[in-house]
């Protein structure tokens, strides 16, 4: 129950702040590449600094921050098929993000503002989730086995 309430409250806060600030984790890079505008890129930097500061602070205060930092406890894994999958998936997320005009977080916010284009995006998003559960997840198992 605590997980549901905490994420609902955090979601509400970041949804409110995201609507007011136009924070987006794709448009920040895009704007920088297109016009050298760094306003949204600073939002990405803020999230990184906030998370890093939070993990350091809460790990010292005794919060549940296990294996932090991960590279110290787990190390760097050798090159494997997972890195290739991350490469293809990462490029896909970046390209599709630019073509759709923002990250999924921004798209949910724009849909909440009443933009019907983003309603179609979310329709595709959640039908895509069904497709992932029925097809992609099994396809990935086959690809991992072949690699």
């Amino acid at each position, binding site marked *: 129950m605590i997980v549901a309430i905490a994420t609902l409250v955090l979601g509400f806060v970041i949804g409110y702040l995201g609507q007011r600030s136009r924070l987006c984790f794709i448009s920040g890079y895009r704007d920088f590449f297109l016009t050298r505008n760094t306003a949204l890129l600073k939002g990405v930097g803020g999230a990184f600094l906030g998370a890093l500061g939070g993990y350091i602070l809460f790990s010292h205060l005794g919060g549940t921050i296990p294996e932090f930092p991960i590279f110290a406890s787990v190390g760097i894994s050798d090159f494997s098929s997972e890195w290739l999958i991350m490469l293809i998936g990462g490029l896909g*997320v970046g390209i599709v993000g630019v073509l759709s005009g923002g990250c999924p*977080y921004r798209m949910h916010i724009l849909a909440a503002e009443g933009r019907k284009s983003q309603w179609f995006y979310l329709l595709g998003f959640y039908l895509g989730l069904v497709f992932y559960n029925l097809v992609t997840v099994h396809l990935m198992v086959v690809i991992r086995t072949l690699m």
Partner: protein
Amino acid sequence: MSLRQMKISPFQAGLVLGLGSALVQAYFKVIPPVAYGVCMVCHPRDLFNWIADHLLNLDWKYSMASTNWPVLTVIGVVLGALTAAYLHGELQFKSAQKPLSYFINGFLMINFGLIIGSCPIRIVLLSAYGDFTGVFTWICIVAGVLIGTWFMRWNAHRLVGREPES
């Protein structure tokens, strides 16, 4: 100055998002996996699959953080954005443009996102957690944005080139 009049910069919003995601992991059991405070691909997956499993008795996967109750981040984001838009008079029902294009982009985004197990937000959180795979994927996403931006620019030039001279 009231909250309603306050100007919020993307940096401030990002800072709160990062700090909040660390907070919910540290004290509100949004773990495992680590660095899972906010993810706009995995959290909708968890909620959707949790409901589907409980209603339809399926066996669709979700994270261990959502074992008893699902994460409700996506509901919160929509409600928060709706409240902000309503309070500031920005709630406008604009008609859809290129609906098929948006539909396909949404479809592809969740599939690519779930393949890497992250959205562009969680990649930042994972990198802050010290995960080198996360840093590598972050670089790949930025490279993807660069390729997409080149394509947009090339397409714009191509369309401008086709216009008849006035």
